């Protein structure tokens, strides 16, 4: 049984606006899965449909054997799925530790052990625990956003363009962190435009076009596919 199974999901924002026309995907425990595709293909909407921020009009979303389609975001989070949005993902006027405390809102009982684990995994946040979120660099902000998500002890983390706006060095560091989080037992599904780099850290990938699955396969295979490189990565 897959950790997550999304099947024939249709979803959108307005009454007549279908962004996802029929999308399926699976994520297995311990995997990193990339979701790639052109702008407006429905990648972020797919993450939101899993996280409960968009209610699928039809189709199924099953997590650890339980249907989660239509659950409220907080209930999806209680099931063990966390969503890290691309922007506005931390509280700039609060300290790092206060941000982490808010991250633990739904899982207060293990606050201390989760905090210790997060600080061990991300020592640069520990060093700056009293600093305000707004004083962090772009890369550190993304780290903090991921750390907040880890405070509920998730089994699956959904990342929406985690490296957008990061310098090459910071992006590289963040991808390493994604691998580290996976090694700690959290599966990852991430939307990325930094496609080649993302494929290099992923096990598998899905390519969406116009709200439907266009390609799927092992990340290595897709990274070496001539058509993918030309059409989706802009290489000639």
């Amino acid at each position: 049984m897959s950790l997550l199974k999304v099947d024939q999901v249709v979803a959108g924002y307005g009454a007549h606006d279908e962004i996802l026309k029929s999308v399926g995907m699976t994520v297995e425990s311990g995997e990193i899965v990339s979701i790639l595709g052109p702008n407006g293909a429905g990648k972020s909407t797919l993450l939101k449909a899993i996280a409960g921020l968009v209610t699928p009009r039809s189709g199924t979303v099953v997590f650890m054997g339980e249907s989660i389609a239509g659950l409220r975001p907080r209930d999806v989070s209680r099931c063990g799925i966390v969503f890290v949005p691309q922007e506005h993902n931390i509280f700039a006027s609060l300290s790092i530790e206060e941000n982490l405390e808010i991250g633990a809102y739904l899982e207060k009982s293990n606050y201390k052990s989760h905090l210790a684990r997060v600080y061990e995994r991300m020592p640069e946040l520990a060093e700056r625990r009293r600093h305000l979120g707004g004083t962090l660099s772009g890369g550190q902000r993304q780290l903090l956003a991921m750390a907040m998500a880890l405070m509920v002890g998730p089994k699956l983390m959904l990342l929406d363009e985690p490296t957008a706006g990061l310098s090459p060095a910071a992006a590289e560091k963040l991808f390493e962190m994604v691998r580290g989080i996976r090694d700690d037992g959290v599966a990852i599904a991430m939307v990325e435009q930094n496609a080649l780099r993302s494929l290099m850290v992923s096990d598998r990938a899905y390519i969406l076009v116009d709200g439907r699955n266009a390609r799927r396969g092992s990340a290595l295979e897709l990274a070496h596919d001539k058509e993918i490189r030309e059409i989706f990565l802009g290489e000639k």
Partner: protein
Amino acid sequence: MAVNGATFAVRRGTITGLLGPNGAGKTTLFNIVAGTIKPSSGQILLEGRDVTGWRPDQLAHLGLTRTFQLARGLADLTVLENFALYAKQHPGETLWRVFLDATSVRQREQAVLEEAWRLVRQLNLAHVANNRTTDLSGGQKKLVELGRALVGHPKLLLLDEPMAGVNPALAVELGKYLLAIRDSGITILVIEHNMSFIRQICDHVIVLAAGKVIAEGAFDEIRQNETVQLAYLGSAL
């Protein structure tokens, strides 16, 4: 102090890349050049004229336009309306001209719409031209931001991470388009972390760290620079 003694020049008719680690002061520098922050000291010259401390609207009249990292589309307008609104010269805004000069008002409106459609197609947004910007994906919003800046035909265009969130294949196409508009006489200063994009379009690259220029030159020279590798590139290239 986000920007501390930065000195550089942007040559007319070129595309110059402004690189640097997150927190280096790049966006603050844009804010200073575009007039949203007044510098504590130093000078900004635009075509030889001292424009230090000028307001953004005054600078816009001189032909300086900028985009923002977080796209700020006018939510209740469609993509096409966003583009049309940012065009210069709307004679229809003057009441007497609407009545007494209706033909030229109509002609100008038609020209603005045609220009807006041309840009919509160029930016791969034709299929969402009549959608409100709130309904667009993150990457599409960035393209609307770029289009609105271009529709006013600026002399100097400041682009703040125009390709963050834009699909790589489209980024290559947009790179070619920016080279074409450079050749048409528009000067561009661009902040971007997408190195293949920078390599594709930039004539010159400036690297900022801790508010100061630490290196400048052609992209291939810059990427060999050890200080730059350490401060910015890591082993990504």
